[in-house]
């Protein structure tokens, strides 16, 4: 009779989240929360690092331009390097921000769905998981293209250097 019942429920609702699946999802939500929070801290540290390094570069170049002011009267390169450094860190931070945000949303919604048995929260959690995985997939494609370009440039440089020798 129980088998009949379980067969009936599975045909009514399709796949169900049983206690084992629930345990896996609870653990996943904990790990993703950790990853998201650690990610946000790393983004903050990256931006602080960018500002500190750019000010160090600025100070070093200022000293250099003071000693060699006749040869290098223009401070344009210093400002350009500093700005580039800050832009680089902000862009990296922005790229890293979105997967952290989506994993945090996945974690929060999954936790609520498992605690209260809310079907809507479960749907939102899976939606955020899908967005995270898609985002990471697209980032990996871009990374692979850049690596391929890097390898081609590297091989061309090596062959040019060999031809000079």
């Amino acid at each position, binding site marked *: 009779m129980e088998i009949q019942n379980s067969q009936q429920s*599975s045909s009514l609702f*399709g*796949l169900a989240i*049983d206690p084992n699946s629930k345990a896996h999802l609870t*653990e996943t939500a904990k790990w993703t929360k950790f990853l998201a929070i650690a990610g946000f801290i790393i983004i903050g540290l990256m931006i602080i690092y960018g500002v500190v390094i750019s000010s160090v570069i600025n100070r070093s170049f200022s000293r250099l331009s003071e000693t060699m002011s006749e040869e290098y009267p223009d401070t344009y390169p210093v400002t350009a390097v500093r700005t580039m450094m800050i832009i680089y860190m902000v862009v990296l931070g922005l790229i890293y921000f979105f997967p952290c945000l989506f994993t945090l949303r996945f974690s929060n919604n999954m936790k609520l769905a498992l605690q209260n048995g809310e*079907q809507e929260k479960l*749907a939102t959690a899976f939606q955020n*998981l899908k967005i995270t995985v898609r985002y990471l997939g697209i980032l*990996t494609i871009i990374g692979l293209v850049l690596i391929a370009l*890097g390898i081609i440039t590297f091989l061309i440089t090596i062959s040019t250097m060999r031809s000079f020798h």
Partner: protein
Amino acid sequence: MEQQTTSSSLFQLSIDANNASTLRSAAGWAKILAVLGIIFGVLFIILGILFQNALSNVSGGYGYDDESRRSLGIVASGAMGVYILMGILTIIGSIFALNFGNKASTALRTNDSNTLRGSLAGLRNYFAFWAILMILGLLISILGIAMGGMKGM
């Protein structure tokens, strides 16, 4: 007792049509991510070997004494080791993603709860793996900063 079993299965969370569609899409992207990740890992390993060879070629040229050659050799081997380690770790992470993707697709196609359980375990392993790596990375960074600070003092 039988009624309790029925009611608990009626009110537990389920993978409805909406969730199934989302999960299927997530599984598809996870498979793409995994395959690309494996390619990424292999490229990392190749890049490490290329880098080591390039540095060895440079140190083998004129104008380098034995001491410089030895130092460059150590740097080249270290860099190759780091690249190979990064490649292997990327491949392991990708295998977890592939496991999740394959099992989730199969579970949704066959309506099999056991396979769904396996896929969710794969998803947990994937995130746990990267989280543990992040903890290790942060610990190594903190140690590096502390050691750098102590040397500076």
